[in-house]
């Protein structure tokens, strides 16, 4: 068995594959501040789910923000891991948009299946899961509800601030003036979609587009971003583990000597 660990800033994902690269099991745990602990927890959970133990693992590849702190045979960049994972599941992919807890990325794949280019937003919370987390707190609604309420909106409120801090103030002022929560939520999804769209437009959008990352689980956000890009995306069943999957595939490759 081979393992991929994605030690993200918000969540740590551990994923087990067999030597054909089929997913055997996986686990997602919050990263907290101690990657060494969270990676162990994620790995143990994943192994338990498939009745395996540590000595069944032949090779581990780590990726993500905390990859250096994870016990692994080698590391790989998130860009490559995400690309690998997506290509394996959806070979027709040409554009990947990954929105994680603390950063977002856009990757272009060429017709040979290789990464043509990528862009990253790793400086600003406004185009990431963090933005929605903050707003979820302000609105006192869990993210799953934000996703549902999005579709109840008839007229999304225009959130003009590009900065999370200023946007927070804007949201509070709209709510206090009586705006519908559903409209504000839809507006927030549009705001984050716009940010991501702007970041990614330099590399262009070509179909098929795949969305990955934890935020892709939010159907409201997916709706906003798809409309912004003008293309319907392919959504993996579990978008949050795609990067770890790619790391696990790298583990297979490295060990089998390809």
């Amino acid at each position: 068995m081979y393992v991929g660990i994605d030690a993200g800033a918000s969540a740590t994902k551990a994923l087990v594959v067999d030597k054909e690269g089929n997913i055997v099991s996986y686990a997602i745990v919050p990263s907290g501040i101690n990657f060494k602990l969270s990676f162990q927890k994620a790995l143990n959970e994943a192994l338990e789910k498939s009745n395996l133990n540590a000595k069944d693992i032949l090779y581990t590849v780590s990726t993500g923000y905390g990859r250096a702190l994870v016990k692994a045979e080698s590391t790989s960049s998130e860009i490559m891991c995400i690309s690998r994972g997506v290509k394996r599941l959806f070979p027709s992919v040409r554009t990947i948009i990954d929105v994680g807890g603390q950063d977002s990325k856009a990757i272009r794949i060429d017709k040979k299946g290789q990464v043509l280019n990528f862009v990253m937003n790793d400086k600003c919370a406004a185009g990431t899961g963090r933005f929605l987390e903050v707003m979820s707190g302000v609105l006192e609604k869990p993210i799953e509800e934000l996703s549902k309420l999005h579709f109840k909106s008839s007229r999304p409120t225009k959130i003009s601030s590009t900065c999370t801090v200023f946007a927070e103030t804007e949201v509070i002022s709209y709510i206090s003036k009586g705006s519908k929560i559903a409209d504000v939520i839809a507006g927030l999804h549009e705001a984050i979609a716009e940010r991501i769209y702007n970041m990614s437009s330099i590399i262009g959008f070509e179909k098929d587009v795949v969305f990955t990352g934890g935020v892709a689980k939010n159907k409201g956000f997916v709706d906003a971003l798809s409309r912004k890009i003008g293309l319907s995306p392919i959504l993996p069943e579990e978008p949050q583990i795609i990067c770890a999957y790619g790391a696990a595939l790298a583990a297979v490759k490295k060990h089998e000597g390809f």
Partner: protein
Amino acid sequence: MKLPRNIRSICETPTALLSEYNDSGIKVIGYTCSYVPEELILSAGLQPYRIPNIGANVSSLTPSFICPFASAILENILRLRDFFHGIVIAHTCDPMWRLYDILKKKIDVPLFFLRVPHDTQNELSISFLEMEFVRFKKFLEEKFRVKISGKALSNSIRLCNESRSLLKNIYLLNSDSKYKIDASIRFQLVLAGMWMPKLDFNEQVKALEFNSDEKHGNVRLHVNGTAIYDLNLISIMEEAGGFVASDDLCTGSRYFWSNVEKGSSLMSALAHRYASRTPCPSHGPLNHRLDYIKLMVRKFNVQGVVTLSGRFCDPILYDSVHIRNMLTEMDIPVAVIDYERPSQEINRIKTRIEAFIESIGD
């Protein structure tokens, strides 16, 4: 006093005017800077239209530290490109210079780059500016298949001179303690003049009536900056008890302060008028600009100066240090208000201005 409804509505949604022009078959030339000679555009039978930054977000084509004002103008040009038959970019400053580069790769609309020298006040530069005006004239003639006659140019000069004189007279009413005009109205008139057909504009301004009973705040202010299209920035000053007695804005006094005088030729006269205007942060010797501000401050009995500074506007950022130093020596209070996108930061700006005006009022 109230402005005629159409001038007011034009200032509220200036871009709506573009569809009107299109519908009536009028060819519009968008331009970005007060150094672009409207007279030449008019003499070719075309309508000049100053491109604002309002209504557009910052463009994703420029990095975050590029002046958001310039970037929003870029975005406006991109989204409104179908309404323009030509675009003229002047070499105002670094981001505007590069706007030309970016547009060259992004739009098909006929594009012209006007190379305005930085030091406009020496004869060599004025001759060069004249050559650039000649090149601009050729561009208009070729792209729009017209021949610009001396007569047409003379008429346009006369028309623009009239606009400018009308605006200047209204402005000068501020130095008289009896009549006062709301700054927002004055600025709206200037902006309308940059968007409307000149004949219409002149007629409407001539027909304005001025009320001598306007009530205004006490604190007389001078506003220093570049081009301001978001007039909320001006109205909050007056709402806070200030009165904008004078300014040196590109969309203010600098637009109309001087006229085209007689010269050795029409083109030479044109070049001299544009070059010899009061300096702006991007053109002309800094010392002359500081002198001009001193003059304005004295002439209009100014009690405080507000510098409106874009956070990434290099010319203003350098100038504001010296403006502040000079005014401090003259014992005139100065507030430098910096912002990235005024429409999003209006509350913060309002608080700052209120505090400033209050501190002078005491």
